[in-house]
């Protein structure tokens, strides 16, 4: 799964593998690793974006150290149908990361020596190319594809260009599943990046780099149209089985079929399993323009939000913890307290899985201090 050279880099500062840190629950939280997180104010996706992004990567030790000569896979966060908008606001100013941020990231990765940059997404209920999907949002894929040498998209919602699904065992056995089966794209890379939006989420409290990886799962196995025993050829529908556990994925049985069939219980655990099995080396959070009140236009009580902030880190838990704090929430909160009113805390579960600490006292924030960039989502 992980290439050796990447593993060395990972252990030397660019994240952690869960396998190396899986210890009994009692000791996990205290021993969970930390890594610095860069925070910067950035009001627009205009001229200030690229230099701000470059400065943040430099604060983290330089992008070249992570990507030079490597195949980089970037999981995007293109949730919901492309034609869905919050009011008249384009998706990139609400629920999706902005294409200029994606292009700028690819550009800087190319500049830092990345060999190949693969932009991954599992678009809702379709096997169509990601390029076709984003065209329907009004984006021009060419602007992203031309941002650096050898940039390409792949739809990971089905087998795609792969010959078989890749197995990703969860170190320690996993909360919900022991093993996840994903597109080859998540294996055929040296560096894995989660590029997500700074948003709340109805089932997981926050949508950040960890939640973004829910979309790693192909709907041919984990979706409504999946076969009972074998994956379907093409994806259809959403991932209700992961939300509610009303059936098992194609040919897979979960660890405890008697565990709660409630998405506030299941989803946080599944996404922690996923990032334990397919670790994130770099987490990039787009909080320049976004939405408050939920993860997509299909929810009630959503509204525009302009935090004007970017967050980047090499540990997904520390990055998401800082992002949660920047949203005006307590990263140490758990079920019953905002933003986790109806779900377990992904951050706690990830911390207990040994993926990283959520304790801000143990996280070094580079650049803009949290107190200077905080944007209270519940007051937006």
């Amino acid at each position, binding site marked *: 799964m992980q290439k050796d050279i990447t593993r060395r880099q990972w252990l030397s500062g660019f994240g952690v593998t869960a396998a190396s840190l899986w210890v009994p629950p009692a000791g996990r939280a205290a021993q969970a690793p930390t890594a610095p997180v860069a925070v910067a104010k950035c009001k627009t996706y205009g001229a200030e974006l690229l230099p701000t992004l470059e400065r943040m990567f430099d604060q983290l030790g330089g992008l070249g150290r992570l990507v030079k000569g490597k195949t980089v896979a970037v999981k995007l966060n293109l949730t919901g149908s492309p*034609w*869905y*908008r919050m009011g008249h606001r384009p998706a990139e100013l609400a629920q999706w990361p902005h294409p200029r941020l994606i292009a700028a990231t690819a550009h800087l990765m190319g500049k830092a020596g990345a060999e190949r940059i693969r932009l991954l997404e599992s678009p809702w*209920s379709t096997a169509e190319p990601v390029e*076709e999907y984003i065209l329907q949002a009004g984006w021009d894929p060419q602007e992203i594809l031309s941002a650096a040498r050898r940039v390409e998209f792949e739809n990971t919602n089905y087998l795609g260009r792969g010959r078989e699904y890749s197995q990703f065992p969860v170190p320690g056995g996993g909360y919900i599943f022991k093993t996840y089966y994903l597109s080859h794209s998540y294996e055929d890379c040296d560096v894995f990046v989660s590029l997500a939006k700074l948003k709340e989420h109805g089932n997981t409290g926050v949508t950040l780099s960890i939640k973004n990886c829910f979309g790693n799962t192909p709907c041919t196995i984990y979706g409504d149209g999946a076969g009972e025993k074998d994956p379907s050829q093409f994806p259809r529908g959403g991932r209700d089985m992961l939300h509610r556990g009303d059936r098992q994925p194609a040919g897979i049985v979960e660890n405890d079929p008697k565990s709660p069939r409630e998405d506030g219980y299941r989803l946080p655990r599944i996404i922690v399993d996923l990032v334990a099995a397919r670790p994130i080396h770099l987490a990039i959070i787009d909080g320049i323009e976004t939405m408050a009140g939920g993860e997509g236009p299909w929810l009630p009580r959503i509204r525009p939000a302009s935090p004007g902030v970017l967050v980047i880190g090499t540990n997904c838990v520390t990055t998401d913890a800082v992002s949660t704090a920047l949203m005006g929430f307590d990263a140490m909160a758990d079920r019953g307290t905002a933003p986790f009113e109806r779900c377990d805390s992904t951050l706690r579960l990830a911390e207990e899985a040994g993926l990283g600490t959520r304790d801000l006292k143990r996280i070094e924030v580079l650049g803009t201090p949290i107190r200077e960039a905080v944007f209270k989502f519940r007051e937006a």
Partner: protein
Amino acid sequence: MARAMKGDRERRRTSVLSLQFRMDGMSDWIPFLWPAEWQDSALLDLLKGTPINCLILKWADPAGRQQLKPVVGRARAAGLALVALVGTGADRSAAVASAQAAGFSAVASDAEVQGGFPVIWWTERSQVPWAAPGPVLAIAEGVWPGIPLREEAGAGPTGMPWIDSNGWFVQLARARAPSKTIWVVAEPPAKDPFLGPSSYALAIADAEVYGARWVISLAERQRAGLVTQDSQAVDAWKKLSGAIEFFEAHRNWRELRLVSVAAVISDFSGENEFLSGEILNLLARRPLAARIIEKGRWESASWEGLKAIIYPDPDPPSAELRAKLLAFVKGGGLLVAGSKWPPTEGTPANGDPYKRYQVRRLGKGRLAVAKEETQDPYEVARDTHLLLSHRNNPLQFFNAASMNSYYTITEDRKKALVQIVNYSMRPAGHPVSVKFPERYRAARLWTLESKAPASLEVGAVDRGVEIHLPPFAVYAAIELEK
């Protein structure tokens, strides 16, 4: 003998002239299927102040005919055109004779009638006599427009609801009988819980937008409500009348030309009728409205501006049409054909993501031949759109999942019109935006309630413009100018 023959010819000529005279104006009729139980001629007062000028009376039943005599008499006196909807079989002749005697203007029938009486052909979709004489064809099994309550309605593979619409068939009918007026007969379902004041406006828009007329017919509750002057029924009647007035005031919009980059070439009949028709229906939903080219008339059809052509019929085209289609491909077009397309030259090219086609590059274009004989119209529409690419969309909607649209332009391409029909009959949760890959300078909004258009802001975006619409329930039209 010779004199007698001359006399016969003269009488026939007089009869034909008379028939022609009586048919003139039929295209302007706005038909209302008069409820059989409305035997009180005072109910004709409901028509005052409305554009309705034609009553269709169910005339097959002798007892019913008798009961409707007062209505017929007063309607004639008021100058309304009367059409007798006659039955089938032996009763038909009696009904026709009775209609003639009662001074009706025409009969609606699914078969020819004797006596030189003007006929409005009133037939099911598959039985329409496209070349029959007469200026009006009535399609007798139109769907009641809306979003059906079927279990699968909300869970289509597109993530968009299924919509029942007559739009595609109206377009097909206009293509097959370009000189005729098309009437859509779609009666309100007896047990539709969503049938309300807006439902009738929707039925009108669903026909008028595409250039046809809906034969006004009322649900039982509405009929009873109007008799008792129930306020909701009166409100629905006013909305219905207002919608007709709106489209009458904009009849010139029917002259505009469909904006399409795709076409379907088929005979649209027999065994090919379902597939080719549903492809039209499902392309329109994407929205990728298709030009309709009848296989027998391809030489006179315009191919200008086309980037993709679907040839779904299993039987091969004529040598001339095949040559024309291959020339289209070599010039840069995309041809999507059924599995029986004869082998052709070219080099293998990247296919569709669903792997349903053998794609070959030929000249500057591509030829995609289905791998399997059985074709699903949804898949044909989707795959064609993917092979063509959304980059070629003539327009793009946001938050319009419950809507269909009809995008037309003037011959000089300086003005355009986008009509949008909302089948949910309530404003979308988030308002609609439309993006055009064109540089329109000005835009105006019409709704069914508009007496005058409202200005819309035209926002410049990358490679085009975007227009944001206010919420609307049933219908909106955007007039555009370059």
